[in-house]
């Protein structure tokens, strides 16, 4: 069963003169119980998409359903069965942890006891602070409280808009562990993130950039679709090395990637060719090795694809 569908969603903002396209014919389907990631930088259209799916915004055109309910017509029914965590912390800072949770339970016409089993694992971590005002919690704890509040009515579909933005690596990891637990309970989860490395934690992902979906697949599928040879190269002087790699005739692309630079080769070029090219320059401590692409490599490649609107979209719009 399809839990969420989107068909040719278009959303624009601004006046006739100055139109910003937030979503440009976005279509995808999410299966029941899937953990689906929407991966893209700020301004890609993630928040607009989530707001359309949660009935908060009307699309200019296109259709979308959640649990087979139309997001425009069946507004009330959808609002009863989705959980939503907006991008910024949206709980009452001047209410305590317990008061916030209780409040959200009552507005969803339920009680904490009724669905406690669902939030137990998450809520127990913040329970020692239940009399603390939400505004005084740490970032990670705020996030856990917000998730507990979004889950309190046992939603069928959970929408999490950039839950890990601005959160440190430790809290991010903990958050993804919580999502895995929730997935086991059969809840469909849509999560958006600007962190490419989080894509591998999803069942399937949609890569999105300036309102266009670049690719939809499982993380492994996306990586498999990356066909060119990818090399990891390093030397003692990294920045000059990068400039040299970018000048290499066999380079389709070269960019920094952690402690190595990634060099994407044009067809017909190989590792030996790169080695002899670098030998001609004055680099010391050169190390070259084949590398397995990750989602970020794929995203960069898809962004730079000459075809499709996505390619030149990181230029300022005219």
């Amino acid at each position, binding site marked *: 069963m399809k839990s969420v569908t989107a068909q040719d969603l278009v959303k624009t903002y601004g006046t006739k003169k100055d139109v910003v396209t937030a979503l440009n014919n976005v279509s995808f389907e999410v299966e029941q119980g899937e953990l689906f990631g929407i991966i893209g930088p700020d301004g890609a259209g993630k928040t607009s998409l989530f*707001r359309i799916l*949660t*009935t*908060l*915004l*009307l699309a200019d055109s296109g259709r979308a359903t959640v649990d087979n309910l139309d997001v425009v017509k069946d*507004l*009330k029914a959808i*609002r*009863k069965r*989705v959980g*939503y*965590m*907006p*991008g*910024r*912390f*949206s*709980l*009452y*800072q*001047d*209410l305590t942890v317990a*008061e916030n949770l*209780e*409040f*959200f339970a*009552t*507005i*969803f*016409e339920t009680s904490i006891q009724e669905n406690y089993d669902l939030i137990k694992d998450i809520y127990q971590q913040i329970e020692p602070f239940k009399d603390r005002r939400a505004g005084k919690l740490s970032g990670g704890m705020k996030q856990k409280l917000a998730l507990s*509040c*979004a889950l309190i009515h046992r939603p069928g579909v959970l929408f999490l808009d950039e839950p890990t933005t601005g959160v440190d690596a430790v809290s991010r990891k903990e958050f993804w562990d919580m999502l895995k637990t929730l997935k086991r309970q059969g809840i469909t989860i849509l999560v958006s993130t600007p962190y490419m490395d989080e894509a591998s934690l999803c069942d399937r992902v949609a890569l999105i950039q300036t309102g266009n979906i670049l690719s939809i697949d499982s993380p492994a599928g996306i990586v498999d679709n990356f066909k060119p040879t990818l090399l990891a190269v390093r030397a003692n002087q990294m920045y000059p090395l990068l400039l040299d790699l970018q000048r290499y005739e066999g380079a389709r692309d070269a960019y920094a990637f952690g402690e190595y630079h990634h060099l994407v080769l044009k067809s017909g070029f190989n590792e030996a060719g790169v080695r002899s090219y670098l030998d001609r320059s004055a680099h010391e401590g050169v190390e070259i090795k084949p590398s397995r692409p990750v989602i970020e490599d794929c995203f960069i490649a898809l962004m730079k694809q000459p075809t499709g609107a996505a390619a030149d979209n990181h230029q300022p719009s005219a």
Partner: protein
Amino acid sequence: MGKSQFLSFIKKEFYHILRDRKTLFILLGMPVVQIVIFGFALTNEVKNSAIAVLDQSKDDATASLTGELDASRYFEIVASLKSAAEIGPAFRKGKVKMVVVFPPGFGNDLKHLNNAQVQLIADASDPNVANTLTNYANAVIMGYQDRVNQGLKLPYTIKTEYRMLYNPQLKGAYSFVPGVMAMVLMLICTMMTAITIVKEKELGTMEVMLVSPVQPLKIVVAKAVPYLLLSCVNIASILLLSVFVLDVPINGSLPLLVAESILFTLTSLSLGLLISSATGSQQTAMFISLTGMFLPTVMLSGFMFPVENMPLPLRVISNVVPAKWYYIIVKSVMIKGVGFGAVWKETLVLAGMTAFLLLISIKKFKIRLS
């Protein structure tokens, strides 16, 4: 929405209000401070005010009355006018605040007709001062009359006649109490309702609320309840202060006054609602509430400046200022002591406005983000 849901909403709003101590302090303290300030401004004494005398009788009686006026600590006679034509220039030069006019034959009338007249002409561009001056002058004249009358069978009476220049229908001394009530209710209900709703938009909690089974309009109604209660506390404190501290009596029916105040509170709440649906930031909401609502309340309700003296366009505009109607109602009920029969028209206007505003804000209320 179930009953418990609604109650938990109201509970939450109370938490917000009670935990923001500074705002709460201002909300509850503001009416007290305003009443005290206005009360003080009203009772401040006028000392040695410059006055002029136009004595057209020049007899013993006028001479001794003039002497008594000059001797009182309230007045200082700075000019003796020769003719009525000098009255206007004396005022315009700003030298004198009041002119005492004795008509020809004042002493004669007093002795033989037992009845004389004196005219007090005051510069009422500052109505409170004019009022105070004429009251003091009147007291001096009455004191003189009492002394002359001692042991006489047929008492002499001096009739003082007032003329208030520049402000013929001098507002009553107690006008500020109804004015402050209108101002405080407007400020708290309109501005605070608008601000708390917009605050939820800014915080992002409105987003979460909307994506929930709660009927959006009820979110907003629940927000209004605590402010309605807060306003009742303020009405009570203003009335208590005015009765026990300022000696302004409530001449009419108290239940009627309270009912009318609640009606006006509802008008203000629906205005606040309307503002909140049109704005996205607390700053804008505050700005609109202040300039769009508060200023007209002060300027056009008749509280500070009499509506009758305004140019026609402003008089027309003043009709759409809810505070004007409320001000008339409170003045009538509280000061004049009249019943519902005398204010039903104004009440109807106010009720009509409330219904209209509520209707628009319900229509305009967004169930989505944009």
